[in-house]
């Protein structure tokens, strides 16, 4: 009798643990984001708690990172290109309708995810790029402003002082691993194998 009782208790315990395990593994709503960007997560969660939609949560969460310049890898004043300019890429997707709005190489507009949302809501297109995307943004009421900061300027100067290293050209003259550009195609091409070690890091990524 005692053995049977023990077996029953063990079985009950197992069922309880399994249920608890399942519950801890899954509950809705859920919001997740890459990297330890706490304020972005808090903003998205707050939007949901206040009755906002999932799209609102994504837009405001990512938008918070643009304001905070998360890690220097989001928003204005980070990752200057070879000419020292900061450009932004953003996208938003509605998993109910499969609608997408996106901007790439966006210049002079800070709220890239906001513009992406407007592409989704006010056009039949998916992706707008470059200065034309900026003009669209202005039409949608976003301010046109300088994305350069003291930090991005100093990153750019440092890069110039380091003979433009690292950079993303290959098989060009002058040798892009030693010299700044302008680069051009060599008379005779000797293709090097693509670099296998990524130049990206936790502070330099998409």
């Amino acid at each position, binding site marked *: 009798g005692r053995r049977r009782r023990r077996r029953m208790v063990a079985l009950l315990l197992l069922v309880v643990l399994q249920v608890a395990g399942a519950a801890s593994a*899954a509950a*809705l*709503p859920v919001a997740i*984001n890459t*990297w330890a960007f706490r304020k972005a997560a808090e903003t998205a969660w707050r939007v949901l708690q206040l009755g906002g939609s999932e799209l609102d949560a994504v837009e405001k969460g990512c938008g918070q990172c643009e304001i905070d310049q998360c890690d220097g890898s989001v928003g204005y004043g980070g990752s200057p290109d070879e000419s020292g300019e900061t450009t932004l*890429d953003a996208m938003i997707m509605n998993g109910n309708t499969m609608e997408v709005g996106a901007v790439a190489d966006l210049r002079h507009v800070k709220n890239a995810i906001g513009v992406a949302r407007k592409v989704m809501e006010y056009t039949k297109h998916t992706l707008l790029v470059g200065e034309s995307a900026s003009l669209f943004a202005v039409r949608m009421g976003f301010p046109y402003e300088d994305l350069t900061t003291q930090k991005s300027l100093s990153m750019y100067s440092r890069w110039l002082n380091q003979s*433009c290293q690292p950079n*993303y050209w290959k098989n060009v003259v002058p040798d892009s691993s030693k010299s700044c550009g302008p680069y051009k195609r060599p008379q005779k091409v000797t293709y090097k194998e693509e670099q296998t070690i990524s130049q990206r890091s936790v502070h330099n*990524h998409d």
Partner: protein
Amino acid sequence: TIGMVVIGESGTTASGTSTNGAAHKIPGRVGDSPIAGAGSYADSTAGGAAATGDGDIMMRFLPSYQAVEYMRTGTDPTVACQKVISRIQKYAPKFFGAVICANTTGSYGAACNKIPGFTQFHFMVSSPLLSQPTEQVVDCI
């Protein structure tokens, strides 16, 4: 870059990304972030995913789309993320990247590629089971 996936109480899924891309890129360069299926992907019948890392490599594999498709077939989100990373590893063993995944039942996970200087990936999770948005960490594979 930030990539985000939000799944509502009824399973409605949305995703998004925002980035200033790679530092010192060639002007005109665009990474994976604004490309649907690459930077992120959402499908309310399966779940959502978002990727981060070296966009020049990752965008060639549409990792977010692939992860969602794995989850559609019932694969656990963590495993879906791991399978995506493994696929890229075969072609680019030293790529820098990570993926987050969540399905429409509220399960979630993440995976990353282990390279020198990048052995763990930190991400944020908000859920009714957590008292506040919480940082979580996965070991890279």
